């Protein structure tokens, strides 16, 4: 087990800065999730940690070692790729054993470790099949087993659930969480899916345009976003952002600021501001109610108003966040 620390890491591809001075630490045994929109540099970050990309500036430490200029294999990390990167010409068993065979481990050790890893991820029933004979979820399990079998210092997971259907994704999310608890090693998990980030991570790093916007527990980044980007990126539906003019009906806010309020904080009962329901989207147990005041409210499906209905909307001042309109930074403590 070991921590991973990045200090001032910069990486450019031509004129584009993929990573622009990234400082991040994954604590020993922590499951750190890096989340951000497509192209924000999260996969580059992971590849830099793995050594598949050389950094232009900054240092990367794994455990006590500075591995900035160390070859990928010598960093002692395992990576699960978005496409799983299973070798099509090898059986599942051979795929899992690959790293050990390359390192010329004794056959008995290979057998024992493969059995152990495949049991851990539930890949035992299909050890003699080839990857193309497996479902997406099964391939994912094999990829995880291949990463586990070598017992590395840390695991790097590059959007491992993005190719799975919704049901399998939920199942594998739980599986990764369980594996992390059982293995206890440091894991860095990259995803663009905010739900995945919030449900899996011990801590979440929100990345945008190669810069770290916020690091914190899922609860912290959701309920106390440091800027408008983080506030908007996390949460479904997205946070309501009101200009001083739009917010006036609810609360007066200074010019040059915007007010952010989560849809679940908007209540459609009591003596709020009169509003008309423009649209209602039902998403299972919750419904999203779009109001004419530029607000979206999340309510229980059973309690949803009808489209066109007149309602009264309100929210508590304490539940709202104030941001600087120009910089997007949080103003309210």
């Amino acid at each position, binding site marked *: 087990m070991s921590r991973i620390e990045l200090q001032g890491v910069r990486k450019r591809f031509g004129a584009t800065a993929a990573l622009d001075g990234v400082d991040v630490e994954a604590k020993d045994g922590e499951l750190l999730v890096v989340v951000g929109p497509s192209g924000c540099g999260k996969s580059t970050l992971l590849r830099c940690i793995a*050594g598949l990309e050389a950094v232009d500036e900054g240092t990367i430490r794994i455990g006590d070692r500075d591995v900035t200029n160390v070859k990928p294999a010598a960093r002692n990390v395992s990576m699960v790729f978005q496409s799983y990167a299973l070798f099509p010409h090898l059986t599942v068993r051979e795929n899992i054993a*690959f790293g050990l065979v390359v*390192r010329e481990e004794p056959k008995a050790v290979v057998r024992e470790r493969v059995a152990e890893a495949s049991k851990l991820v539930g890949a035992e029933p299909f050890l003699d099949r080839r990857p*193309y004979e497996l479902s997406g979820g099964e391939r994912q399990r094999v990829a995880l087993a291949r990463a586990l079998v070598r017992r590395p210092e840390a695991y790097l997971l590059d959007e491992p659930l993005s190719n799975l259907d919704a049901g399998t994704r939920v199942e594998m999310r739980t599986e990764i969480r369980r594996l992390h608890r059982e293995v206890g090693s440091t894991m860095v998990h990259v995803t663009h899916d905010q739900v995945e980030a919030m449900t899996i991570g011990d801590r979440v790093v929100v990345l945008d345009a190669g810069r770290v916007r916020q690091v914190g527990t899922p609860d912290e980044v959701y309920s106390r976003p440091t800027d408008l980007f983080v506030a908007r990126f996390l949460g479904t539906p997205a946070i309501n952002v009101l200009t001083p003019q739009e917010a006036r009906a609810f609360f007066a806010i200074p010019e040059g600021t915007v007010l952010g309020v989560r849809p679940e904080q908007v209540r459609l009962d009591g003596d709020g501001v009169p509003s008309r329901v423009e649209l209602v989207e039902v998403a299972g147990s919750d419904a999203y109610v779009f109001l004419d005041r530029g607000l979206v409210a999340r309510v229980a499906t059973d309690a949803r108003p009808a489209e066109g209905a007149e309602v009264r909307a309100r929210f508590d001042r304490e539940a709202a966040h104030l941001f600087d309109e120009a910089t997007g930074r949080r103003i309210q403590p």
Partner: protein
Amino acid sequence: MRAGERRWGGWRQPVAIAVAVAFLLPLWFMVSGSLREPGTPPPRAPELIPRPLSTVSYDRAFDLVDLGRHTVNSLIVAALTVPLAVLVASLAGFALLLVAGRARAVIVGLSFAALMIPVTALLVPRFAMFRWLGLTDTWAPLVAPALLGLSPFYVLLFYWSFRRLPPELLEAARLEGMQPFAMWRRVGMPLVRPVTIAVALLAFIASWGNFLEPLIYVFNPDLYTLPLGLRSLETLDRTNYPVLLAGAVVATAPVVLAFVIAQRYFLHEDRGAGWLGR
């Protein structure tokens, strides 16, 4: 039924048959002509099956020229050339994949340029070089091009095939500490098997049918390859068409056999063969 099949509809099979017939007819006339009695003139009209059928032309061809020895010589040259060409072309193609962007573009460009150079333009300098090395009248000049992959085309063919592989496969191997040569052997080559077989077949055809280079470099009749044997046959009995065609059948049969054996590998497509890990 796929869209392409629908569009072709019922025309696909007759067209395929027509193309096959167009290509097979000359082969058939070669075989049927070789089964005519020696000394008989070519038939005035196309003759599918000659009457009477005779294999004497084959005996005559083997009597006139030592076709057996020339066949063995050609087989030896091909046995040296083909594996060497596949080995070098695939290694060069894989190396090209690992070369950084700009250098790779330059090498690919140079390879294309090399493809444009006619073989005949290099005959004199190459002859001079092999003579200086004392390698004329040996098989070395026939095999030597295989040390460069036989043709830039084969190198590029391998490069394009390796480039088709998902880069994550090689990255996964790199993370496990695999060295480039091991990656080529254990990851790259098993995944481009159809291309390997296609290149081997093309190299075999090139080596087997190579007339010009043996003509220039090989003087000792004991070292003659089959194309030179056929030329001897033509020199010795120029007008005996059945005998000449019997020699042509002997020269063509191994290539056809090699294609029949190889085609099932490189024309074979199923889910397993096509799935590359994505």
